[in-house]
């Protein structure tokens, strides 16, 4: 397992190097960059201009520029943003990245879960009304024009029903007197969610391990999980953050909902297909013959193996929604990486654009890495040398 993980990690780093290089040269090749505008600005005196040139490293050869760029990149020094001068690119990205990450991860986990469950259910009831209905509805959303769908969702839930905020990350009126910055609250939210997530995972893993966990350990697990959530919320309340957390959460609901709506069908149809194959497997018939309850046959036999190819789709949908991230973040005015990249590209802020692109790439590579590991953990047939053991 360790060899497998390290091997994969090596591949990831190599890919990252190539990717960052590509991004660098791609943006170098783009016409109309802002450095020239600075450098040819007649208001800047010749001496200052030379000084600036040196500072920006523009007096060196392209190759040397590339080398120092790469060196700096891996030291986290991404330069200074032109459009938000003199804010370092790194700081801007560190502020935006968590927002994007949390939004898309949440949306993907939701859509994966919805897709997985629905795919499982409709494959099990293949040819029944629910199968057709879910397929038609899913494909309708899947093929819908995304910005339009986002507008419709906003129009219904925010504009007409007024259940949820129209857009943005926070409600400025509420925050004007806040003792925290949005980033502080958001950071705390992420920690809290991580603690809850990891905690619940271990609680359920340890208490509900066996084939047939007793009713008592089931109850224990749920009680512990609720206690953990309550504890985290209590800490937040003590800090006086609860209301602000709620505000950010409210702002996340619509984009997450829209992304789920548009994405779930992908996982659903994949799961359905995958499961229609596994239900034909002899071991599913054998499981029925064993007199296992229908749900057990469906979940532990047919769906469990059908899950494997679907896991890859989690990454793929993460990738596709990230690349659509610009649209989402623009539609919902979500101040994340996508919106930043969009703005940076429009204003020729190429240090920021490079950084944003590079981070999008890193993000996807990490997702791929995690999916590979997940796949290996889920499928015992994968030997960790990277080949299938069958």
């Amino acid at each position, binding site marked *: 397992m360790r060899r497998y993980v390290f091997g994969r990690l090596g591949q990831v780093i190599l890919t990252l190097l190539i990717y960052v290089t590509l991004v660098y040269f791609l943006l170098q090749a783009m016409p109309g960059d802002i450095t020239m505008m600075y450098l040819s600005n007649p208001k800047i005196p010749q001496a200052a201009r030379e000084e600036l040139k040196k500072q920006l490293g523009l007096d060196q050869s392209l190759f040397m520029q590339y080398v120092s760029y790469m060196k700096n990149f891996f030291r986290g020094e991404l330069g200074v943003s032109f459009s938000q001068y003199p804010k370092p690119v790194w700081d801007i990205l560190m502020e935006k990245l968590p927002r994007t990450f949390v939004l898309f991860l949440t949306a993907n986990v939701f859509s994966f879960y919805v897709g997985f469950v629905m795919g499982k259910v409709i494959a099990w009831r293949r040819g029944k009304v629910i199968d057709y209905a879910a397929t038609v509805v899913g494909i309708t959303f899947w093929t819908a024009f995304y910005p339009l769908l986002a507008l419709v969702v906003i129009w219904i839930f925010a504009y007409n029903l007024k259940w949820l905020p129209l857009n943005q990350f926070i409600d400025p009126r509420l925050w004007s007197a806040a003792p925290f910055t949005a980033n502080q609250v958001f950071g705390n939210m992420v920690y809290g969610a991580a603690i809850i997530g990891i905690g619940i995972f271990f609680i359920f893993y340890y208490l509900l391990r*066996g*084939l*047939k966990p007793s009713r008592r350990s089931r109850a224990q697990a749920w009680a512990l999980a609720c206690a953990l959530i309550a504890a985290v919320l209590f800490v937040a309340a003590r800090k006086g953050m609860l209301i602000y957390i709620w505000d950010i959460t409210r702002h996340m609901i619509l984009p997450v909902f829209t992304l789920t709506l548009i994405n779930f069908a992908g996982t659903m149809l994949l799961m359905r297909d995958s499961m229609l194959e596994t239900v034909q*497997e*002899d*071991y599913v*018939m*054998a*499981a*029925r*013959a*064993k*007199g*296992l*309850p*229908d749900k*057990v046959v469906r979940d*532990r*036999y047919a769906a*469990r*193996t059908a899950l494997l190819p679907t896991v890859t789709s989690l990454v793929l949908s993460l990738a596709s929604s990230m690349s659509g991230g610009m649209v989402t973040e623009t539609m919902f005015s979500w101040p994340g990486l996508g919106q930043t990249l969009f703005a940076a590209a429009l204003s020729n802020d190429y240090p920021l654009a490079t950084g944003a692109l590079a981070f999008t790439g890193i993000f996807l590579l990490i997702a791929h890495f995690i999916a590979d590991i997940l796949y290996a953990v*889920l*499928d*015992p*047939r994968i030997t960790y040398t990277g080949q299938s*053991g*069958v």
Partner: protein
Amino acid sequence: MDTLLRLEDLTMHYKTKAGWVQAIDNVSFSLHRGQSLGLVGESGCGKTSVAMSIMRLLPYNAKLVKGRVLFGGHDLYTLSDEEVRQLRWKEVAMIFQAAMNSLNPVYSVGNQIVEAIVTHEPETGEDEARERVKSLFELVGIPKERMDHYPHEYSGGMKQRAVIAMALACNPSLIIADEPTTALDVIVQDKILREIEEIRRTINMSMIYISHDVSVIAEVSDIVGVMYAGRLLELGPADDVFKRPKNPYTYSLMNAYPSILGEKHDLVTIPGEPPNLLDPPTGCRFHPRCDWATKECREVEPAWREITKGHYLACHNPVRTEHGTAHNKTARRAPGKGGDGIGTSGGN
């Protein structure tokens, strides 16, 4: 003796785009506790369908047209799904034709057996179930350390044994073994079959062996049923049937496989192949391939009757020879007046 399983005029068809496949037609037999029945016939004759009918595990396109399956006093097809589910494995277990693939690849073999035990015996704890799995592994000859391994870490023979251990897990009254060893080489096949039979005798369990190979069946069965094109053509005590086969099909099948009694004889395959059950032949379904066929055979379905105690037959012109001479071609009766050109080619 105590009857465990009884099929009464079981008739089952599959619905397909091309029409109804008449896979089982009026099959009746009964099986006592502790008895083993061998079901033999060429591939496509409905043996697996019979097995699945007994498990009530038929595919969605199957339709029970007529008849009953009585198991331990229950009429299987009047029970609720839940009642049937509880009977499965606890009462009737099965070793599948594709035993190799009947293990779930993502769970350890031991867990899959433990799962069967704790599902059917809620009072049994997991640890206790694991202990039982260990002794089952010992019984079928797998090192017990192997129970936490995954199916892909097993060899073919070991998977086979694991599947047998799994079938034994809940002490069922009946195990159906559908071509349990066809994927294995002959020597392992033989060994495993003998082992199953030994276990079966010691725990006095009933068994239905299904095979297309007469020699396999003969070795392990108390009674034997010969199936052709969805019908039983002959059924009786194994000694009786194999020593004095009455149905020409039984007789031909015996000639097609190495002798059970150890005598050498030329293997004569039966020319032609089983009919398409979408539109089976009229009268006796075997008539197009039967050397004994007469006009009557082509028009009238032979009745299922008991010719001697426990020996049933459906045939208009039973073979009259004793075994031994039966292999002698000269002992064959002339084909029911030639001229019809059916089945006379005989390939012999």
